């Protein structure tokens, strides 16, 4: 296999990158996954069953964590650029930064969940609570998986199992990471901003 095909990943007979095609198919599928959860949430946004509702949302706080996640997309782009330059050290730094920002976002989510629970919004109190926690929880799980992927990539790179020119991995994880980010853009707009 030539270096050229390595940089761009294995290509099929029609010139398309095989693994990226698969990744996009997966992300297309994920749209429906989150779409269904968001549809559930929209349906239940008023079903508070006498419990607390959207008034608990702390928009400034969530805005900050949204911004953190948005910035992690930027660091992901920088990591990807470093890979294209075959600069392993830079790549690891930016991957770590991305993972860190993702962790900060998760921390924010944990804080938010704890606060809501303390204030009486639980997932077993109303369909609104169920839909909110399960939707944002599944998004959080996606972020967590992304963080694990980023971290393992750093580890593999350190151990020499991930060379800079084999950047298809970085690109694939990047696609996944950006996708998780745009899902949050939708959730932040639809679940938080539009409901206040």
């Amino acid at each position, binding site marked *: 296999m030539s270096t050229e095909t390595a940089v761009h990943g294995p290509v099929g007979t029609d010139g398309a990158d095989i693994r990226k*095609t698969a990744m*996009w198919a997966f992300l*297309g599928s*994920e749209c429906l996954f989150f*779409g269904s959860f968001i549809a559930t949430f929209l349906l239940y946004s008023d079903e508070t069953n006498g419990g607390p509702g959207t008034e608990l949302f702390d*928009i400034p706080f969530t805005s900050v964590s949204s911004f953190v996640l948005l*910035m992690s997309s*930027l660091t992901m782009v920088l990591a990807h650029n470093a890979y294209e330059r075959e600069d392993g050290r830079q790549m690891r730094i930016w991957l770590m930064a991305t993972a860190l920002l993702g962790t900060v976002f998760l921390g924010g989510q944990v804080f938010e969940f704890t606060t809501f629970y303390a204030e009486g919004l639980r997932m077993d109190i109303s369909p609104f609570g169920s839909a909110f926690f399960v939707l944002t929880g599944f998004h959080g799980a996606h972020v967590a998986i992304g963080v694990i992927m980023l971290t393992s990539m750093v580890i593999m790179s350190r151990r020499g199992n991930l060379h800079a020119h084999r950047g298809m991995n970085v690109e694939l994880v990047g696609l996944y990471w950006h996708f998780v980010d745009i899902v949050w853009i939708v959730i932040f707009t639809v679940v938080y*901003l539009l409901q206040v």
Partner: protein
Amino acid sequence: MIALFLGIVTAVEIAIAYIPDLNRTLLTVGLIGLGILKFSVVVGWFMHLRFENKTMNRLFAIGLVLALSLFFVVLATFSGILAS
């Protein structure tokens, strides 16, 4: 550059959400519009979809379109627009 742009858009969004007494429809349209803008920027540039081939574009587009239709049909059915 793009990151800066995204940051500004987010700031505008939050500002809009806090404008007191803003017309509800205007708010909805504005926020959804800005959301779509951010969405397209990330997908198009960060994820390079703008530069990928048609197959990948369409794979993702179908998912997106179907997810959006899902919103509308399910919500329309439940909200009584279709139920009359």
